[in-house]
């Protein structure tokens, strides 16, 4: 990749890391509160269904994961496996798409 593309990839990973730090904290805090209050799965779904706020939050979470994880794995593949270039980039894009599709599918299941 060009210097510009590499820099953009680096920026995307840092930005997605910042979003993930926030999303993971909110997600874990929500889990702990839900468990402590003894909410059932049905009760949780009752609160998330139709909620634009939760849908927006988890879509943001999924997009951040789909950007962050492939870029990190791309670096690990290059440094530990010496796997770099177009095939590695292609595999990382494919992984990002898979994560995005599976994640959005899960978000729609609990919010729509």
């Amino acid at each position: 990749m060009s210097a510009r593309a590499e820099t953009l990839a680096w920026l995307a990973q840092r930005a997605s890391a910042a979003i993930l730090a926030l999303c993971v904290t909110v997600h874990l805090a929500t889990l702990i509160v839900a468990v402590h209050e003894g909410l059932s799965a049905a009760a949780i779904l009752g609160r998330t269904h139709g909620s634009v706020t939760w849908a927006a939050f988890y879509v943001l979470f999924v997009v951040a994961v789909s950007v962050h994880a492939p870029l990190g794995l791309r670096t690990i593949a290059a440094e530990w496996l010496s796997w770099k270039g177009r095939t590695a980039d292609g595999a990382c894009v494919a992984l990002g798409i898979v994560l995005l599709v599976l994640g959005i599918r899960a978000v729609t299941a609990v919010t729509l």
Partner: protein
Amino acid sequence: MPAPEKLLHVSVWRGTAAGGFRSYQVPRQDAQTVLDVVTWIQRRIDASLAYRFACRVGMCGSCAMTVNGIPRWTCRTHVARVATGERLQIAPLANLPIVRDLVVDMTEFFDKWARAKGGFVPTATRRGDFARVRPDSTSRRAVDAAIECIGCAVCYAACDVIAWNPAYLGPAALNRAWTLTRDVRDGARRERLAAVAGDAGCHACHTHTLCSERCPTRLSPTLSIAGLKRTTALATLRGEL
């Protein structure tokens, strides 16, 4: 009856990459440096031992070796500070090809300075006036904080990323690029930023900070690399890269 002579047990790397350690016993003396030990072996025990040194006062950067597993400038490293149980293990610097014994080939190290556009590109001519740079300006203070590199390659030998990614320019070359990036007299900012961006440049740094930890002149290449990351990112967003 004189007190028995105290001895230092020293293992020294001999040969090329396929070589091994050889043991020597060297009289222990007060205020003895690791370079003194190597010199004693070369002059009194085995004249074929190859090693480099020049100034012996921490200015030239030629005597760096791996001492008990850690890269150090040997002329300013006292045995008392690094010997464990009167034992020393001295090896060539890591991440560079071994020429023989304690001598490494520095070609790649300095080639990377060139690849990082580490040469000053003047914008003025000899007919112009002197550039006036305020010593307390932000850019000059950033340069001053990073300029005193002696090119010893200790940071390069300490860097994990180079071991994983041999194309990585390394802390010293990137530190040099950073000083030029902040030099208001330099005219190759855009080319230099393009040279230091990417997976062989500043973005490959994992911020392990070993370069800063080991730098004998107490520079912080980590900080310089962070500056390059920031500057290249801003240049990319502005469409300059």
